[in-house]
C-alpha cells in the first residue's frame, strides 16, 4: 500500500514538483529570514564576540553596551588589577571620531584603543598586514567595512594616510572581523594613540578587560570586582547579550523586521499546509475508493503519512540547502552578510513547523474519508 501511496504522490510529475517546490520555497523563506534576523541582532555584540580571550568586561556603572559607554578615570585599571582572582587586566577604549579620507570625505568611525604592551583586544585574524605593525607609531588597522567604505576598490589601503582630529594616521593592516549592527567603520590602534585621535575629556577609559585566574569562574570574578571596586562588571556572554538586548529594546528594526519574520513563518507554513491539503483533496475519491474496497483507516493514515514524510523531507531538505547556500554565498561575497551562520535551532524550528502543518492539514483533509461512509465520498 505504501508503494501505491508513493505512486499517487509522484505519478503526476507536475503536481509533485509543485508540492516539493512549495515546501522548499517556504522552508527557504522561513530559514533564511530567521537566520538573517538572528545574525543581525547578534551584531549588537560583535565587539564582544571579536575578542575571545576576555572573561569579564569592567565599566562605569552607567555604561550599558559596547557602544553605550560612560568613560572611567584611568585609576580604574589598577583597582581591577588589585582584585584577587584577576589573572590580568588591560585598558580598552571605544569612542566615536570623524575621519578624513584620502579623497577628502568625512566618515564617522569607531576608534578602538588596544593595550599598548600586550595588544589584547585586537581581533586575532588579519586580512592584510601583521599584528606587530600596530607598534609602529601612528598606525591604524581598518576593518572590512572600513576597507570598502573609506577606499575605492582599486586602491590598496595599506600605506594610505587618514586624518583624525588633526592627527595623521597610516593604515598598515586590515582586520578580519564581523561588522557591527550599524556597520560603522572601525579603526584599531594602540591605546596611547587612540587618546590623541579622540578628542575628549579627562576620563577616557571605556573598559577594563579582565581574565579570571585558574579556578575562578567568570561569574565569581564579576562578584568580586563589583564588590571591591564599585564598578560594573559583566561576563563576556552576559555583556554580549546586553548588546543584543539593547538593539531589541531601543531600535525599531528588530520589531519591524521581527514582524516580517513572523509573517514569513506564517506565510511559509500556510503555503505548505495549503499545497499539501490540496494534494489530499485531489486524491480524496481515490482514498474513498480504497476504503470502499477494504483498506482500513489505519492503513490510509499510513499512506498519507508516507506521502507527507516523503514530500516533506525532500521539500524541506531542498529548502534548507538553498537557505544554507544563500547564506554562505552571501557571507563570502558581501560584508553585509559577513560572519552569518545558521544556528541549528532554526532548521529544527522550521522542520517542526513544516512537519506539524503537513500532518495537521493531511489529517484535516482526510477526515472526510476517515469519518464518513465510503459512498459519501463519491458525491
Amino acid at each position: 500500500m505504501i508503494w501505491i501511496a508513493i505512486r499517487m504522490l509522484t505519478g503526476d510529475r507536475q503536481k509533485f514538483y509543485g508540492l516539493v517546490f512549495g515546501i522548499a520555497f517556504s522552508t527557504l523563506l522561513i530559514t533564511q529570514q530567521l537566520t538573517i534576523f538572528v545574525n543581525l541582532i547578534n551584531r549588537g555584540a560583535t565587539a564582544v564576540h571579536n575578542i575571545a580571550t576576555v572573561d569579564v568586561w569592567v565599566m562605569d556603572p552607567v555604561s550599558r553596551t559596547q557602544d553605550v559607554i560612560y568613560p572611567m578615570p584611568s585609576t580604574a585599571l589598577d583597582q581591577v588589577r588589585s582584585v584577587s582572582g584577576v589573572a590580568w587586566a588591560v585598558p580598552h577604549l571605544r569612542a566615536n571620531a570623524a575621519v578624513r579620507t584620502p579623497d577628502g570625505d568625512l566618515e564617522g568611525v569607531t576608534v578602538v584603543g588596544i593595550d599598548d604592551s600586550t595588544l589584547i583586544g585586537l581581533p586575532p585574524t588579519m586580512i592584510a598586514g601583521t599584528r606587530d605593525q600596530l607598534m609602529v607609531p601612528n598606525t591604524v588597522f581598518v576593518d572590512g567595512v572600513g576597507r570598502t567604505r573609506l577606499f575605492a576598490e582599486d586602491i590598496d589601503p595599506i600605506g594610505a594616510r587618514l586624518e583624525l582630529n588633526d592627527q595623521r594616521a597610516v593604515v598598515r593592516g586590515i582586520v578580519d572581523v564581523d561588522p557591527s549592527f550599524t556597520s560603522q567603520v572601525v579603526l584599531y590602534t594602540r591605546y596611547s594613540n587612540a587618546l590623541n585621535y579622540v578628542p575628549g575629556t579627562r576620563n577616557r577609559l571605556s573598559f577594563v578587560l579582565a581574565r579570571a585566574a585558574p579556578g575562578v569562574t567568570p561569574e565569581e570574578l564579576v562578584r568580586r570586582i563589583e564588590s571591591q571596586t564599585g564598578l560594573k562588571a559583566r561576563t563576556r556572554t552576559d555583556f554580549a547579550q546586553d548588546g543584543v538586548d539593547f538593539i531589541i529594546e531601543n531600535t525599531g528594526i528588530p520589531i519591524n523586521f521581527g514582524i516580517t519574520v513572523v509573517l514569513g513563518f506564517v506565510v511559509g507554513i500556510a503555503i505548505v499546509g495549503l499545497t499539501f491539503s490540496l494534494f489530499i483533496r485531489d486524491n480524496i475519491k481515490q482514498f474513498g475508493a480504497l476504503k470502499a474496497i477494504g483498506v482500513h483507516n489505519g492503513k490510509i493514515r499510513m499512506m498519507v503519512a508516507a506521502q507527507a514524510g516523503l514530500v516533506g523531507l525532500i521539500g524541506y531538505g531542498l529548502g534548507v540547502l538553498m537557505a544554507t547556500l544563500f547564506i554562505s554565498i552571501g557571507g563570502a561575497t558581501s560584508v553585509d552578510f559577513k560572519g552569518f551562520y545558521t544556528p541549528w535551532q532554526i532548521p529544527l524550528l522550521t522542520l517542526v513547523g513544516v512537519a506539524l502543518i503537513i500532518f495537521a492539514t493531511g489529517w484535516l483533509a482526510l477526515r472526510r474519508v476517515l469519518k464518513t461512509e465510503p459512498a459519501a465520498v463519491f458525491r
Partner: protein
Amino acid sequence: MSGCAEVADNGAAISVTGITRDFDAGGQVLRVLHGIDLDVTAGQLTYLVGESGSGKTTLISIIAGILYPTEGCVRVFGTDIYSLSDRKLVEFRLTTIGFIFQQYNLIPTIDAASNAAVPLIAQGMDRLEATDRAHAMLERLNIGDQARKLPNQLSGGQMQRVAIARALVHEPRLVVCDEPTAALDAKSGRRVMDLLRDVAVASDRSVIIVTHDNRIFDLADRILVMEDGRITHDGTEVPTLER
C-alpha cells in the same frame, strides 16, 4: 435503527429487510429508499433496473456495505454487516465483496494491472504476485495487452474492464456492479457478462448488477425493477412497460 437484532436469519445469500435511507437535501430530509425487502439466492445473476434517480446506486451501496441504511437489516452470507465495527466492516468488504463503481474510481497514477491488483495488495499479497494475478484477470477480460497503461491512456470501455478486473481479482463471494457494460460495445459487454456469470453460477456466490443495457437482459436469472425508492417488479423478465 439499522441492524438485524429483530430479524431471523432466513439462510438467503443476501437478505435485505425494511431498508430505508434518508438524505439531507438542503435542510430537508429526502427519503430515497422506502422500506426495501429483498432476498437474493446464491448462484444467481440478479439485475436491478429502473429510471435514473430511482435509488439503484443507493440500494446496492447499502448491500455492498459502503453506505449505512437509515433503518433496516442487511445480511450478507449470514453476517449482519451494519452491526460490525467500522474496522470489521472494512475487512468484510475486503474479503467478501467486489464493487464496480459507476465512475470506475481508478487510481490515475498506477497502471491498469496495478489498479486491478489493489484488493490483493490491500490483503497483504506481494505486489508482483498480485500484479501477475491481476494481469491474468485482465487477459480474461480481453485487455491483457493494456496492462501497462495508465487509466488516462485507456478508452472508457477499457477503464470499465479494469474496474471489473479489480472487483473480481480476489474472487469475492458477492459482486456488486453499477452499470458494468454501459461503456462497452455489444461484444465486450457480453464477454464481461459471461465472466460475471461464471462467478455467479458458483453455488456459494452472488452477483447483483445495476443496468440499463437491454442487450444483456436475456442473461439475467432474475430482474428487479425499482421505481421511486421501491421495488415494483420482481421476475425473470422486464415488464414491457420498462422497455
